[in-house]
């Protein structure tokens, strides 16, 4: 061997030896490296079990790993389980091992990049994504993610290049079009942003979150009307990104919390069956999770499976006898089935557990009204505090409860309070007009106010109920002839329909004829004193 070749051979051998030594050392390090310690005691039982199993599996695989690739697989799989459960520091450690052992494997670089991006470490995310893309340039979602990372880093031209690269392969990729729209918006190229965002919406019409940046772009181009129209369509759904690798990781999740969140998201988007399935998984994963059971129960109510819903509420209450929402939801089922007494008991239990549970208070009051327990109902309504205009409804109901209980005097200030809160409600107008006509002293100027209110009601809608109110107010201010004239028509109409309240109306007519005012705003059997039951109308849906 010539000296040069000998030297060269020695150099090569030296480098090979060093490389082999490094590999051996790396393998040895990887084999002897201990996975990150995670305090499982703070996690829910199902997650503890999943992570324990994952760790056992990891130990098995490491013990039998034949090469670095297998070792990397073990580390990477463990990292995926940690990342799926948002234990990001632990996941990071695992992925770092995986990429060190197998730098040419796409998925470990990609998952690590995604982790960096989740943590806002965009520089590192980009580095990993680019490494991954060198391995597999065809994995579309990766280029989308580099685009988002570059956009966050204010590298707008770089982001544009990335999104355009995605579109070269998938011309109708809504996420890429949206990305270009956002990039254009950041560059203040508003017309361009409009074009891209509209194209994204055409590609994925369900991605209604895009209507917001579209609206902003319209606004900036001097089209406020189009902006407002877009804002009306604004929603919470982003463009769909099909990412098989992230999907694989997501399926590793074993957490009631995760399923609950999926269920809530589906529920918000109106996908009720999907939400029920997610809640069911949450319960399966953690049968003792009261929140999961109550959420499942509510989902079953909304999908019409009342028997199964009741079972879930019962099980929730078995776990937590004082759970206010479980009591409330159980109460709504009782109410819908027509059992006001049982419903009232459940609502009362909900209130006892949570005195601030206004909705339960309102439903309890209504149930008590239907049961004829007016004084209790009035007391219950008085304790409720709802925000804004909703409080007017509460005061209105309280006023009616006083009237039904024969307590005219207490009804007046309460109905006045309702009127102050919501002076454009026909129902409150009517109630106030009637109590002014009957419940205040004859010389009280509010008697004239009754007439004024009644006339406004008739002008707004000349129906029989308002006519009856006008008759009452007329009689209340001494206009008996007018009261008789109106009430005669009311009675005639009532007789024609065979209305059960005809006798009461006739009695009022007799009173007007003999120069006396009405004796009560409504008879106790009038529907006004019996608030509509859940399931009987639109309120049922709103209440759910």
């Amino acid at each position, binding site marked *: 061997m010539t000296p040069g070749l000998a030297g060269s051979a020695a150099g090569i051998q030296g480098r090979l030896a060093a490389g082999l030594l490094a590999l051996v050392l790396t393998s040895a390090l990887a084999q002897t490296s201990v996975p990150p*310690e*995670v*305090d499982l005691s*703070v*996690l*829910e039982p*199902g*997650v503890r079990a999943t992570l324990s199993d994952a760790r056992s599996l990891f130990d098995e695989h490491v013990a039998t790993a034949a090469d670095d690739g297998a070792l990397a697989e073990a580390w990477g799989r463990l990292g995926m389980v940690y990342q799926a*459960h*948002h*234990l*990001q*520091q632990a996941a990071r450690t695992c992925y770092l091992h995986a990429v060190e052992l197998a730098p040419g494997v796409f998925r470990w670089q990609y998952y690590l990049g995604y982790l960096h991006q*989740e*943590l*806002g470490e*965009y520089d590192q995310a980009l580095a990993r994504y680019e490494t991954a893309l060198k391995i597999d340039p065809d994995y579309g979602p990766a280029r989308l993610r580099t685009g988002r990372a570059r*956009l*966050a*880093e*204010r590298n707008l031209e770089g982001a544009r290049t990335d999104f355009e690269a995605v579109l070269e392969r998938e011309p109708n990729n809504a996420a890429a079009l949206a990305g270009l729209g*956002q990039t254009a*918006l*950041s560059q*203040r190229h508003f017309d361009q942003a409009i074009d891209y965002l509209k194209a994204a919406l055409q590609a994925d019409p369900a991605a209604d*979150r*895009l*209507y*917001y*940046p579209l609206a*902003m772009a319209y*606004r*900036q181009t001097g089209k*406020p009307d189009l*902006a*407002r129209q877009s*804002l009306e369509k*604004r929603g*919470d759904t982003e463009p769909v990104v099909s990412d098989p690798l992230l999907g694989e990781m997501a399926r590793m999740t074993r*957490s*009631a*919390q*995760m399923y609950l*969140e999926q269920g809530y998201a589906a529920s918000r988007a109106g996908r009720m069956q999907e939400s029920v399935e997610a809640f069911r998984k949450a319960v399966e994963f953690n049968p003792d999770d*009261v*929140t999961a059971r109550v959420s499942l129960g509510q989902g079953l109510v909304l999908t019409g499976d009342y028997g199964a819903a009741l079972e879930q509420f019962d099980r929730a209450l078995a776990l937590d006898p004082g759970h*206010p929402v479980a009591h409330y939801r159980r109460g709504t089922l009782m109410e819908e089935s027509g059992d006001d007494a049982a419903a009232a008991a459940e609502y009362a239990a909900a209130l006892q*557990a*949570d*005195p*601030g*549970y*206004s909705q339960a208070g309102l439903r309890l009051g209504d149930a008590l009204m239907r049961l004829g327990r007016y004084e209790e109902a009035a007391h219950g309504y008085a304790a409720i505090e709802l*925000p*804004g*205009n909703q409080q007017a409804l509460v005061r209105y109901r309280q006023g009616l409860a006083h009237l039904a209980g024969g307590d005219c005097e207490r009804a007046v200030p309460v109905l006045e309070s309702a009127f102050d*809160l919501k002076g454009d409600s026909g129902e409150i107008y009517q109630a106030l007009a009637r109590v002014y006509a009957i419940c205040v002293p004859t010389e009280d100027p509010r008697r004239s106010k009754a007439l004024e209110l009644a006339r406004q009601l008739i002008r707004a809608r000349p129906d029989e109920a308002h006519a009856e109110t006008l008759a009452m107010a007329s009689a209340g201010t001494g206009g008996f002839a007018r009261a008789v004239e109106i009430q005669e028509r009311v009675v005639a109409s009532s007789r024609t329909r065979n209305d059960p309240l005809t006798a009461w109306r006739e009695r009022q007519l007799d009173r007007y004829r003999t120069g006396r005012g009405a004796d009560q705003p409504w008879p106790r059997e009038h529907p006004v004193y019996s608030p509509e039951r859940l399931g009987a109308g639109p309120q049922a849906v709103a209440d759910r």
Partner: protein
Amino acid sequence: MVSCAALRVTHTDRMRSKTFGRFQVADQGPRHRNFLLSAALSVSVGTCWAAEVFVDATTRSGLEFQHFNGMSGELYFPEMMGGGVALFDYDGDGDLDVYLVQGHMLGGKPVAEATFPPAHPVPLTDRLYRNDLEDGRVTFKDVTESAGIRAEGYGMGVAAGDYDNDGHVDLYVTNFGANELWRNRGDGTFEDVTGKAGVGDPNWSVSASWLDYDRDGWLDLYVGNYVDYSFDNPKPCRSSTSARDYCSPLVYQPQVDSLFRNRGDGTFEDVSESTGIRRAYGGALGVVAADFNGDRWPDIYVANDGVANQLWINDGKGRFDNDAVMAGVAFNMDGSPEASMGVDAGDFDGDGDEDLFMTHLTRETNTLYINDGRGWFEDRTVAMGLANPSFAYTGFGTAWIDYDRDGWLDLLVVNGAVTRVEAQLMAGDPYPLKQPDQLFRNLGDGRYTEVTAQAGTAFKASLVSRGAAFGDLDQDGDPDVVIGNNAGPARVLINVLQGDAGWIGLRLVTREGRRDAYGARVALEADRPLWRRVRADGSYASSNDSRVLFGLGPKAPAELAVRVIWPNGVEERFAGLATGRYHQLRQGGGSESPP
């Protein structure tokens, strides 16, 4: 050590910038003064920074306050939200005193079950510290007892304002529970006038703002309320890892805010319904009042936690309309509502209108909205360089301050998590919410850069920061800050940045000369006018120094002129103001200024 060679963008470069704000040319007064100021602001040689920008002067100042949140392992929601601070001159001696809110045990539990025992004797109350400033040295003395303030509620925040126009600044304390109004008698003592005034809002209140919304000369009060939380029904919540954690505010019903109109006789009228501010609400955490659409009526911006924010535009006739969505400030640029905590309004880009900045949750970024002058905004967080640096943090108290006195408004953000930080939790930290604070410098070219690493050791501390009140504690013409840390010590950070940058400070008072003219706007006359606003509100649950400070850069002129738009819309000009000191400008004491 930091580099002294900080590059500056020259005035000419800024004029050429396509994406930067508009410039208004002032045409009043001698041009040479404006030229000198303009030239001074455009000098390309950077200010030589000291080793520290802020120093932690807590111990030296004698401010010994440890916040007690009453936590006992139950993860009660209110326990991690409190820590407001007020900087105000309670004794009228010209320097800033400090008020700090305090908590107590929650859920009826005994003190023995507290995770961190209280550092002060029980029963705990809010504390008032008098600043005995001498020769530029800040020294605080606890005068709570002698002041007669016995605020024993579970404190959230505080808003300082002279509601009765007697020349003495009063305090409105927001609580988890009924709020309190403490009237400053002017003799060093306070009295609880909550009942008489009618402002004891019983909801969970956090931030409040004093503003004269109807321009009748009396300060009205906006109270931001959070959510309907009850100890009778604590909801067990878990984080995404499934570990037990604090709940999201979205788990609870939001509470409506309140607006109280000052009748001028020591009492207030609840005008929440009649003014329309109850037509939209969320869990309010930050509140700031400013004229956002340039019509000279004060508007109100409410930063809500996790839902759309509100921008209440004052119609000048006693009603407000919420224009946040169309104005572009209800959501971020993606259309997502964010968990807003702290907020500030200011003219950071020097175009004469009030922009908005607010702090958000980890993984949401803080958000900066640029005003187009008409009350419509653009989310330019990413473009300004403020997105990435905030992604890993949950921001609370914040303000636009010119810490280096170069005329450009910088940003200071105090941080502290609201869900337990994985690494700290796994390490066994009993209160794993700690995060460091941040400082961002306005480069003057439409961008910010984070300078936390160069700001000094004061920024290396990692605590659960919440409130922050900004003001010139040592009267040296630059802003300092007092930070309220949840279950931690209050910190006094004094600005010690060396350099030759000039300054001028102004206290603007009403015609009678008694009260700070909250809402007044003042512009320094120059080729690039600098605008500032008289305010105490903003940040988080805190109350700031209501004086305005202008940084003038190096080689500041000896004298300046300013233009003031008073809260009632009248304009005046004040000339011949010497730089390097504070001035008090009284409405009516200047010359009439054309609009």
